[in-house]
């Protein structure tokens, strides 16, 4: 499995097209909130989840998607799903 840093790097490439705040994206940490900090349109969280599913060949259920609001929570969910595979 990818290390946390590797997971963050992959996630950064996935969210990049949806980011509306370039500054916050440059300073991205685990605590970064997709909507509040990166100013991503909430509708686009669906697209990010789909792109993550494709990149890791996992399925993100509705409940997980509702929790997936920060970089940290996204990483937790990806790890969980990969372990369950």
């Amino acid at each position: 499995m990818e290390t946390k840093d590797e997971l963050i790097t992959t996630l950064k490439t996935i969210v990049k097209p949806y980011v509306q705040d370039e500054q916050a994206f440059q300073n991205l940490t685990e605590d970064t909130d997709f909507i509040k900090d990166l100013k991503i349109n909430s509708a686009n969280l669906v697209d990010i989840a789909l792109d993550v599913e494709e990149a890791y060949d996992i399925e993100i259920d509705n409940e997980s998607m509702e929790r997936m609001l920060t970089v940290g929570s996204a990483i937790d969910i990806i790890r969980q799903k990969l372990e369950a595979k």
Partner: protein
Amino acid sequence: MRNRVVITGLGVVAPNGVGVPEFLEAIRAGRSGIAFHQELADLKFSCQIGGIPPITEAHKHQYFSELQLHQLNSSGIIYGVIAGMEAWQNAGLPVAGAEPDWESGIVFGTGILGIDKIREAIYKVDQGQVRRLGSTAVVQTMTSGVSAYLAGMLGCGNQISANSSACATGTEALMMAYDRIASGQAKRMLAGSCNDHGPYIWGGFDAMRVLPYQFNQTPEQGSRPMSATASGFVPASGAGALVLESLESALARNATIYAEVLGGHVNSGGQRGGGTMTAPNPVAVSRCIQMALEQAQILPSAVDVIDGHLTATSKDPAEVSAWCDALGRRGDDFPYINSLKSMVGHCLSAAGSVECVAAVLELNHGFIYPSINTENPHPEITSLISSDKILKQAIHKDIQVIAKANFGFGDVNACVILKKFNHG
């Protein structure tokens, strides 16, 4: 007291030119935008020619953000947004800041939007993959998609809507925008319409046998409005957009005024008296033209040019006959009459807007564009009007008044009267 309404911005995405400068040059030169499409041949279409605007990646990146282009699969939105943004910029109008521009609205019509996106979505739904549709399947396919995209990009805060009246859509959109400004409910309205391209749009018409099948090897000769050998309309696509503005607003900001909208009319033949789902009631067509002239307070003798609907079907002689009846003019006394469709094909719900843009260009630049492929005009037409009134090549001429009409499935009609704007 109604406000006077003028046109201060133009945008166009047509099969023979993307953007006003390229389109103007093409219609002056009589250049066809009709081409053979292998995809149609592979799908066993009888008519394998069509009009698709030559949009490049550079065009898309000029008007759309990376995020907007992500998973964008709706040609109508691409055409509509490019034409709409061009018209707004051409009018020299700003994009709203934090506060919406409450005095600017949009009416941007279409027949159906995002057919390729709909197809993509239907496949996924049928495969049980509804959760993989992504976030834009709705906004790319809702009828009001283009007006919604443009409203967000420009920050317009007045009425934002989309009309739909088949091939009359674009001219009707202009009339709706005109009414809103004339009645004082808005200062500026972006009026336009678009149509997707491709087999899923054009297939239904091919099945109706209303498209020409004889010109697959000679596509540029396929669209032949008013010709004795007209054998169906050539399907096309694109978008047109016009910024309408109260004269007061245009003068106050010292805008370039391309033409004045004197008035117009929309009606229906009720699918009575010869009118059907697909054919117009000729009395309604004449009445629509007469009511338009009446509202514009223009005598039939003042009309210099008719920019007709004239699709290149067997209905062309009936249309010319309706114009003769409405104006009470025939033979040598008839105005010049032309059909943009000879060059761009039938842009369907975009036709009215693309053709209104062409009409405004004629008034503003003092020329009349040609109807190509009219070497042999239809004998029923030349029995009504002098063949000199059908131009095979563009002419320079200072014209004052154009009557522009479009007629659509459902027996619906729209006619607008445009006048050159004379300063002072």
